[in-house]
């Protein structure tokens, strides 16, 4: 097999223009590939994309739905980006989200009658702590036993998924319901809507809060500098006196906690019952999926505090738009799912081309 001889050359340090040009170009290329997928479904790509974007942003109702979708994505995206920043590969946001929702369910169902101003903070804090715990365990396993956190956090997702299934199909099952789910949480635990008539609720504010917190932590705090140092070079960070393990554990706590809140968000903002396997989204989804989406969003957003909200919004548009496109044209709604991967791959190529040139070598 003869490979064409390629030589990889470093470009001189790229300026801001180059740094933006290539990622944007790669997203356009990805959309182009998406057009092929749409065409494969027998639909004219322009029509398809029209329905996609207007379905997500066309009117106030669509925008509010997109923002509603944006909320958990921003939360998990922030959670994962924070962890990835210090090279703690937290793929367990899904599980942390689920455990947050589960614990919130417990309080939400057991404390019916408690006033909102008590119950909602209680539910949020408990969700945060649960998610934090579920992330800290793999972090400790990594610190003490060098166990690869990609695997431990991931397997953790499945463990929680089945545990939730057990609870919701067994001891917590609501006898009055047709399918496996918990009883509804207290009305006082439900997240109030921001504007009546639209699904966007206070979870949106919470998500924005954490996104801003992420920004502040990274740019303005000692801890943020330590996180960046550990993520760039743990050996050197250790040499310079930064307590690497402590950074790792604290990051795991915040990351898992934010993901846990994403779970609380879903429970108290939208679903109001804890669901079981296969009933989360109504299309046979095993789980809400926002945790995994968060990983994608973190990577797409370049792990930056500004990129993550943009990526989360983009993804919300994609998801809502894909559903609208399906309803209008029949292009299968997993379109957005396939686009995730395509965009990421194109983006990797784009980022690479920002810093390197590929040249053909003669001979």
């Amino acid at each position, binding site marked *: 097999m003869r490979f064409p001889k390629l030589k990889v050359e470093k470009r001189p340090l790229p300026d801001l223009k180059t740094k933006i040009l290539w990622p944007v170009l790669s997203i356009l290329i990805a959309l182009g590939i998406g057009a092929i997928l749409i065409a494969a479904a027998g639909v004219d790509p322009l029509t398809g994309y029209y329905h996609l974007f207007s379905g997500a942003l066309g009117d106030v109702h669509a925008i509010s739905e997109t923002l509603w979708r944006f909320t958990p994505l921003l939360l998990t995206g922030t959670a994962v980006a924070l962890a990835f920043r210090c090279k703690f590969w937290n793929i367990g946001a899904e599980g942390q989200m689920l455990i947050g929702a589960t614990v919130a369910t417990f309080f939400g169902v057991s404390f019916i009658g408690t006033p909102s101003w008590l119950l909602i903070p209680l539910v949020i804090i408990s969700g945060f702590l649960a998610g934090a715990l579920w992330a800290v365990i793999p972090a400790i396993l990594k610190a003490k036993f060098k166990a690869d956190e990609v695997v431990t956090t991931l397997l953790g997702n499945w463990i929680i998924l089945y545990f939730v299934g057990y609870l919701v199909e067994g001891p917590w099952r609501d006898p009055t319901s047709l399918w496996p789910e918990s009883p509804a949480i207290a009305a006082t635990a439900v997240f109030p809507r921001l504007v009546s008539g639209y699904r966007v609720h206070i979870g949106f504010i919470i998500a924005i809060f954490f996104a801003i917190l992420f920004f502040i932590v990274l740019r303005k705090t*000692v801890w943020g500098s330590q996180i960046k140092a550990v993520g760039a070079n743990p050996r050197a*960070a250790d*040499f310079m006196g930064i307590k690497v393990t402590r950074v790792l554990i604290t990051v795991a706590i915040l990351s898992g906690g934010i993901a846990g809140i994403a779970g609380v968000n879903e429970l108290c903002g939208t679903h109001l019952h804890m669901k079981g396997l296969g009933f989360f989204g109504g299309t046979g989804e095993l789980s809400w999926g926002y945790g995994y989406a968060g990983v994608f969003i973190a990577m797409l957003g370049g792990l930056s505090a500004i990129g993550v909200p943009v990526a989360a919004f983009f993804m919300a548009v994609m998801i809502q738009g894909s559903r609208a496109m399906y309803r209008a044209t029949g292009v299968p709604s997993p379109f957005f799912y396939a686009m995730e991967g395509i965009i990421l791959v194109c983006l990797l190529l784009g980022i690479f081309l920002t810093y390197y040139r590929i040249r053909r070598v003669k001979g």
Partner: protein
Amino acid sequence: MKRSPVVIKMVRITKKFPGVIANDKINFEVRKGEIHALLGENGAGKTTLMNILYGLYRPDAGEIYIRGKKVTIKSPNDAISHKVGMIHQHFTLVPPFTVTQNIILGLKFPKGVLKIGRAEKRVAELSEKYGLKVEPRAQVWQLSVGEQQRVEILKALYRGAETLILDEPTSVLTPGEVRDLFKTLRSLAKAGASIVFISHKLDEVIEISDRITVLRDGKFVATKKTSTTDKGELARLMVKREVIFRLKKPKAKLGKPALEIKKVSALSDRKLPALKEVSLSVREGEILGVAGVAGNGQRELAEVIASIRKATEGKVIVKGKDMTNRPPSEIVEAGVGRIPEDRLDMGLITDLSVKENLVLETLRDFSDKAVLFFPEGVFLNHSAIDKYADKLISEFRVITPSREVPSKTLSGGNLQRLILARVLARNPKILVASEPTRGLDVGATEYIRRKLLEQKTRGAAILLISEDLEEILTLSDRIAVMYEGKIMGIVPARKAKIEKIGLMMAGTPLSKIGR
């Protein structure tokens, strides 16, 4: 006397890298059976030239002729097919593999199936024939550096090399091992092999070579017959300046012992003993140089003092306080400045900006009050950080477009200035400097050595660890020699004789050396 035929001829070889011309129209030739030294300072272009001959680099211009025929060498495989072998300065061995596995690595076997038994036999034969003692089944990571070098040489011979290129082969050997190597090289040359010996060490080059080619700043300077030249002429050709910098070593005004290391033991990364009850003491105002061939525990010693390696026994006492195994941040607070050996991997975080690297060690100085879970403070004072960074950049003359650029864009000399700035700006009472001038050009080296002497005059206690014996001799007040994790002896620099130090470096304790 009939001259033997030219085996290798390199004509007008040019090689450019971004920002520098490494080889500028260089002519070089090697005859059969000769030992030809390639001499020059660090960065003169010697290794680049030989990397081109060995196919690791492609020249931008120029031609290569082997045994009269013009050849194009696109890869080490091509070089090997032309019977050229290279032994690099940093060994290219696979540590968990055996000697034989390393030697046959990359060779083709019929149907792709290895024939280890036959290979082991051939390795034993070759090792016998050329006097290169190795055990074919031994795992390479367990071998001594000298033995590993023999494996590298056998690798080349196994592939039929008739021309051997050795890149700074003695930099990791003890004087005794150097003698063995020279014996081997002479017998190889007598058997008809041609040897290119890259070095920057004048004494060795004069001892071993038949001819010497001098390179300087990427250009060919001269080829001389060794018997017709001397150290002075070679040094002039190498350096061009008459100045071989003679730094005035100020008289030591000694104070109390500031850094004391008492019977410290530690393990290496491979869990073998690296330090065996090492005791040293450095007084204020003195420079204690630690000499020794790399790999005898010096790195572990620096790491134990820097608190990034655990001392299993003994005490590290800083200004009278026991600081054994305290966290690095406390060591820095106690006034110990550390210049690590590993600039890029440990001394700096190259992806972070220049200014961040200047303050990461001491973030607490730039933050607000400590709160609850945040003992180092919560918020950073960015304007204070910016001011501090600017001050240091100008004071230490770090050449950088701004304080915000990632530090990996800086050149080697400036990286070291950056580290120096970070460390010296705090006026440390104690300095531990490991290989501070390794890989730097003359100008940077001079600057750093001057700064070290400045600190000494200020009253700092300096522990200088260096493989460069000349550096140790130039800067130190006292010299300690390490061998296999132990201190062989400590002598005052003025009275130091090279032979004594060489013997200690090779394992003879001071007590056993006669007058």
